[in-house]
């Protein structure tokens, strides 16, 4: 007997999720941005890294100006003559990939540690929690700053820094949820069946802890993107060869005061829309998934 | 005939939730004269507490008083302005709630909480208010009251805390005290003391008292009359003797039978079968029907109240007879 999708927990959750119009808009926006960024090389009107194609004479043109070759710069150009739209698309790609990859890694690392700590308890648990508490009592930005000073610049280094900064949030959340579930009967039953600890933790405990962790993961992606952008803006994050949205904004900063706002403004809008949309998705997920946790 | 202290007529209070209207209090009527003690008995969910809150005007949203009249000394509380109601609260109509640890503000001293109760209703100097507070504490039997004014609620034991709440209730010489399960959170021995003291205080000052409880044995020694509530309605009313010795409604009988004192040693304790119906699931039939051993065909329609004498009545199609032994 198969249960129709609408009646299964996943189906119910999805049905409730789409009840909120703002959540739908937010999700659509995120998907659009994601697809646009992924296909940047295909849909961008210009390759902003191909120095041969750039014309300095086209520098700092306002939006909707035309180039000598007849192309319209929809969002204007920066000081090197780069089309802002293309730069934003490529920048979005980097911002999103760094944000998503670092979050996935932090998710795996943090959740595993948190689950193991909750299940095993004892010294491992105490030690882990001390470390987590200590780390979380310092602002993420500062820790990332220090890490980057030590590690240097580069996509891999900033991804690593973000992972180190964010694993603690996942660990704490996973442990919290797992502690609540640990004493439930199904865990006891699994134990009685003498299943291996790894199996109990990852095949029995984890799926029940997943909903709350997924909520956190969504907001963490937003946070990772935001932190990376801030670090790049400060000049500590990604190098100029791999400009994320943060770097684009930083680049355009000095032109802001002379009224050439578009060099910073549009990358900024793109960044903010992605971050806010992700947060809204996370909020809606939390509303949908949380009541279920109170079973 | 003097105006009764309290007369409730067809009170209706409902909670308007997403799932529908919950008729917590469904056309309740009763009267209370000065110095009388009324016990409102019912399970949780019967609407007894909401009745008390309705009289005080403290029904929180999504709840609302949907109709009826509450006549306090002849004046309809529901027709008054909110300001006038506020003036009555805490002075002419006082309240004692269930768990004093929750009802006394944990971060304020007892003295502060008592003095403010006085000053909210009378223009007196702080010193005079303090004097009255000390007097009230003394009356409820709290030793060294002057020092205790500076204490915080968590520094008192449970019974003492409730005495403080009673002291606060009598501070402004109320005409009516509404006590909602005041002894439920206390030890049995303390319970007895509190019951005794409240009774004497009320007798002394002619204060009317409504004692809301789920425990019939508590009001047996205290009340003059009893209203038994079930699913938002009064299913039986009468004097305490009439209710305890000649209960007509099957639910009332069930309540009396389930009192531990009634069972002989070694006997199984009686329990009314089934559970209180969900307030959203109430239909046209008698709400007690599913649990009633005496249900008949007529019970598919909700019974109207049958009044035997003023103050004595029940809602039942198939009540027990007057002479049936309990």
């Amino acid at each position, binding site marked *: 007997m198969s249960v129709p999708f609408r009646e299964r927990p996943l189906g119910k959750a999805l049905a409730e999720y789409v009840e909120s119009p703002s959540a739908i808009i937010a999700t659509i926006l995120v998907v659009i941005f994601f697809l646009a960024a992924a296909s940047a090389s295909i849909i961008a009107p210009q390759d902003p890294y191909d120095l041969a194609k750039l014309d300095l004479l086209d520098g700092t043109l306002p939006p909707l100006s035309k180039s000598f070759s007849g192309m319209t710069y929809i969002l204007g150009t920066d000081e090197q003559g780069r089309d802002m739209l293309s730069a934003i698309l490529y920048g979005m790609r980097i911002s999103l990939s760094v944000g998503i990859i670092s979050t996935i890694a932090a998710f795996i690392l943090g959740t595993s540690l948190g689950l193991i700590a909750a299940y095993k308890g004892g010294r491992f648990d105490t030690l882990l929690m001390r470390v987590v508490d200590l780390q979380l*009592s*310092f*602002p993420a*930005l*500062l820790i990332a*700053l*220090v890490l980057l*000073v*030590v590690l240097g610049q580069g996509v891999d280094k900033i991804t690593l820094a973000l992972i180190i900064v964010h694993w603690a949030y996942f660990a704490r959340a996973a442990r919290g949820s797992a502690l609540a579930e640990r004493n439930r009967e199904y865990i006891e039953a699994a134990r009685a069946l003498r299943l291996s600890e790894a199996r109990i933790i990852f095949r029995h405990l984890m799926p029940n802890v997943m909903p709350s962790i997924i909520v956190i993961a969504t907001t963490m992606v*937003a946070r990772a993107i*935001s932190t990376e*952008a*801030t670090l790049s*803006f*400060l*000049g*500590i994050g990604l190098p100029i060869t791999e400009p994320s949205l943060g770097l684009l*904004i930083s680049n355009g*900063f000095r032109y*802001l*005061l002379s*009224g050439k*706002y578009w060099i*910073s*403004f549009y990358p*900024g809008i793109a*960044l*903010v829309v992605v*971050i*806010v949309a992700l*947060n809204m998705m996370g*909020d809606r997920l939390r509303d949908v998934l949380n009541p279920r946790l109170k079973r | 005939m003097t105006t009764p202290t309290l007369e409730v007529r067809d009170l209706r209070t409902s909670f308007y939730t997403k799932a529908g209207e919950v008729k917590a209090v469904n056309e309740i009527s009763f009267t209370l004269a000065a110095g009388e003690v009324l016990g409102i008995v019912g399970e949780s969910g019967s609407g007894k507490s909401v009745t008390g809150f309705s009289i*005080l005007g*403290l029904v*929180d949203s999504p709840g609302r008083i949907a109709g009826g009249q509450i006549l306090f000394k002849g004046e309809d509380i529901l027709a008054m302005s909110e300001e006038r109601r*506020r*003036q*009555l*609260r*805490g*002075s002419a109509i*006082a*309240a004692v*709630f269930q*768990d004093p640890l*929750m*009802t*006394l*503000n*944990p*971060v*304020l001293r007892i003295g502060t909480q008592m003095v*403010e*109760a006085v000053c*909210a*209703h009378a223009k007196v100097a702080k010193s005079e208010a303090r004097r009255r507070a000390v007097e009230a504490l003394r009356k409820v039997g709290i030793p060294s009251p002057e020092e205790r004014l500076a204490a*915080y609620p*968590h*520094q008192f034991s449970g019974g003492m805390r409730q005495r403080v709440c009673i002291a*606060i209730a009598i501070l402004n010489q109320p005409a009516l005290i509404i006590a909602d399960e005041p002894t439920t959170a206390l030890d049995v021995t303390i319970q007895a003391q509190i019951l005794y003291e409240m009774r004497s205080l009320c007798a002394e000052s002619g204060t009317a008292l409504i004692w809301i409880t789920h425990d019939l044995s508590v009001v047996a020694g205290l009340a003059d009359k009893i209203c038994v509530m079930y699913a938002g309605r009064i299913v039986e009313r009468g004097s305490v003797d009439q209710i305890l010795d000649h209960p007509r409604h099957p639910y009332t009988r069930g309540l009396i039978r389930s009192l531990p004192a009634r069972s002989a040693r070694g006997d199984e304790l009686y329990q009314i079968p089934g559970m209180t119906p969900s307030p959203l699931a109430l239909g046209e039939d008698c709400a007690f029907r599913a649990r009633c051993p005496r249900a008949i065909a007529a019970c598919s329609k909700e019974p109207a109240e049958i009044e035997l004498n003023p103050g004595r009545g029940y809602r039942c199609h198939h009540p027990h007879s007057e002479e049936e032994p309990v």
Partner: protein
Amino acid sequence: MIIFIVRRFFQSIVLILAMSLLVFLGVYAIGNPADVLISPEASEAERADIIRHFGLDKPLYAQYGLFLANAAKGDLGRSFKYNEPALGLIIERMPATLEIAFTALFLTILIGIPLGLLCGLKPDATWSKMIMGFSAFGFSVPSFWLGLMMVMVFSVFLGWLPASGRGQTMNLFGIPFSFLTFDGLKHMLLPAINLACFKLSLVIRLTRAGAQEVVRSDYIKYAKAKGLRPARVIFVHMLKNILLPIVTVLGLEFGRTIAFATVTETVFAWPGMGKLLIDSIGVLDRPVIVAYLMMIVVMFIVINLIVDLVYTALDPRVRLEERQ
């Protein structure tokens, strides 16, 4: 109570020592201390000097001892760029940072708590939902972007306020303050507001949640049953209970605010500790970076201690439990 203070004080000292060990290890054991402490342009003589001063040729534990001894004297190396003691530079810039941090705190309390209270008491009003929407915005948006927008709107388009710099200052007890001059105030306003944004959103949400929870509590119902005036119910009974957790959060957030000032100071070119840090990172002026870190760690621990003490003083339940 005294025992409590003393105990917490010693805990803090232990924590500072532990953090100093971490910083020390990070710099001396993992990193190459020679790179950190000796400027690449130093002469041989200067090199030898520094090696001797910091004991870089001695075993690790001796180095740590020297590190602590030097740190206690306030010697955390010399800045490569300015050729001045690193710690001195930090302390010189501290008033500027603290000024906007305190102003941000002040603004947060002044605006955030009343707004949060109002939203909590009337959650269904349209304006209430709008305020919550804005606070969600201020919470998730990166603060540097908000700063940029503020510059764009208020400096470039409207021309009301200056976009950067500190403006005029006036000395009070020998420390320059901006708020004492009108020009200084104009310069201080945007950075302080920018710094306050995140905290403001947080405080509004917390106050609202607290108000909603407290308003349904039994003791509020009881206070109303006593017939107290609504104003008294809100300001005497509710407020204290709502504010307790908020005080803790504000205190802990203050430390984070000082750290986040790095971003605000960069956007507004405000000459505080944060800007110094970013500039130093840019030119690899490592002694300054180390000095900044130590300073921040100490500040954090001190702030935590103060917050603990304040909370204990305010909540009678905690205070009296200690005594018993």
